């Protein structure tokens, strides 16, 4: 188990990104790389599932912040699901709930994009 592993799945035309472990300034490159590739490929309907994150430092939230408007400009969005514990707390504390839509479950987040 490395400090961070990032899996990507597809649910219809939504890309579900599932980081496992923790995101800090050391591991963020892995997470940011996956998001970057999706956005650059025009794959801009993105759900980040936080179910397997133990913690996320500001660098991880920064990666979302830096790409969300690009995703929106391309007709998509970055939405977040299944945050728990400290991750959910820091998300709120940073005010990310005003920048980024969140959902209780991955399914709800995927459905929120509507079919295509």
């Amino acid at each position, binding site marked *: 188990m490395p*400090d961070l592993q990032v899996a990507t799945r597809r649910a219809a035309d939504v890309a579900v990104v599932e980081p496992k472990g*923790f995101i*800090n*300034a*050391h591991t963020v490159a892995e997470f*940011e790389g996956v998001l970057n590739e999706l956005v650059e490929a025009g794959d801009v309907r993105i759900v980040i599932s936080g179910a397997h994150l133990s*913690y996320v*430092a*500001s*660098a991880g*939230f*920064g*990666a979302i*912040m*830096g*790409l*969300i*408007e*690009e995703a929106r400009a391309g007709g998509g969005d970055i939405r977040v699901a299944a945050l728990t*514990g*400290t991750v959910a*707390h*820091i998300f709120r*504390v*940073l*005010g*990310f709930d*005003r*920048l980024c839509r969140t959902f209780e479950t991955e399914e709800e987040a995927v459905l929120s994009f509507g079919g295509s």
Partner: protein
Amino acid sequence: MDVPATCECLSLVHEATRRAALAEDFDPAVADEIAVAVSEAMTNVVEHAYRGEPGHAVRLRFRPGPEALRIELEHRGAAPKSLPAGVDLGRLARERRRGGLGVHLMRRLMDHVVHEELAAGVCCWVLERNRPRSRPPSPGSES
């Protein structure tokens, strides 16, 4: 305790801090917050004070006091000229910025956050988290 000033040490600093906070009887959720704040300070030293250069060190100290747990990160890098007073997330996002949240997060998670210059060339991040108080009974508050 001297720690290499590299991001590769962040997870270990996080874990050592979390356990230090647990040992001081902070709740697990609060210990996680303290650990995140200290990791942010460490990241700040690595990336801003030492500008990512290798070969530097951070001196990490846990100082439990009666009112608060104080954590110090002493370094010999650059002092910030100024620190952001707050953040405007919407603007940072529109500007495609990927950083600028570190100091803000430290301040939100801790009760006291300052960057001090101890001596010429010696700086220190000081972070404090107050211990929970057993609330004094406030007279007439019973319903």
